[in-house]
């Protein structure tokens, strides 16, 4: 019994300790001219869909949920955001070469078509990020118009 208490206490200390290492924030106050929506002058409904389903992990601006302040959950989030931005950063889309823009568009389309994006683990919590059938179709149709 005493042993259990000690283990519990150690765990508690570790967990509290973890909270002293918060994640860096992925925030920017301005929307750059290289932003995807600005680059292509995307219509309002598309901009909204992208904002709620993609931008949290694929841009320089994340709207953090409250639990991002709880470690180690926040670390997991940070890792997702870093990986997401590495493969596609919608804030910097306009700075990509046109070849890279085209190939990113192709990958975006196939990821969305195959329901690989947005991530199921993400939409599980963020219900508003889920793409309804209509939203998905509108977004895909729009992305296809950008491909040459």
């Amino acid at each position, binding site marked *: 019994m005493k042993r259990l208490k000690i283990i519990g206490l150690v765990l508690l200390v570790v967990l509290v300790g973890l909270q002293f290492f918060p994640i860096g924030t992925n925030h920017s106050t301005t929307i750059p001219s290289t932003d995807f929506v600005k680059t292509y002058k995307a219509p309002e409904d598309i901009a909204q869909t992208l904002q709620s389903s993609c931008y949290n992990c694929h841009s320089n601006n994340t709207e953090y949920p409250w639990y991002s302040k709880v470690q180690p959950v926040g670390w997991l989030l940070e890792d997702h955001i870093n990986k997401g931005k590495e493969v596609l950063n919608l804030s910097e889309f306009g700075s990509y*070469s046109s*070849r*890279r823009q085209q190939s990113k568009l192709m990958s975006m389309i196939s990821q969305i078509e195959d329901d690989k994006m947005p991530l199921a683990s993400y939409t599980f919590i963020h219900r508003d990020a889920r793409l309804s059938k209509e939203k998905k179709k509108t977004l895909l149709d729009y992305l296809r118009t950008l491909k040459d």
Partner: protein
Amino acid sequence: MRKIIILLSLALISLGAFAQHDHSKMTTKKKVQPSVKVEHSKSASAIIDNYLALKDALVKDDSKNAASLGKKLFDDFAKFDLSVQAKQQQNELAEIIEDASEHAKHISENSKDIGHQREHFEILSKDVKDMVIITGSDRTLYQAFCPMYNNNKGGAWLSTSKEIRNPYFGSKMLKCGSVQQEISVK
């Protein structure tokens, strides 16, 4: 008798129209392109070698080998010497290499998802082709096209042989496709 002649000629005309329609459909699907001649050069040889090996791995549905070849290809792109290329082409080549290395990297990181590897291979194939047209090649290449890939949107790839071995479907549809273009060395 006259009726029969009219009917027959009508039938012939509609047959002709049908055949013509079919023909036009075929050419758009096949998208045969005029052949191109490129300079003889070994500057992209390592890239071509590993691209072709990667293609063969995908033909064999071997995603593990495809991943390790993706890594090799990624290194080849990093090692590629831009400075010896014509000045006015360096920018475009740099863009091709930037894009292509990213696809090679994704292929190397997805040893358990051959579908995803194939998606990146499709765009990579275009990059390698555009690259070879600028840098030149040390061998004749054929661009083949499978109209059924990606929900019938089709996908192209490069090969040293006219014989079709499909990297998008592998054993499922090994011989689907046809040669679209020849890239020969001057």
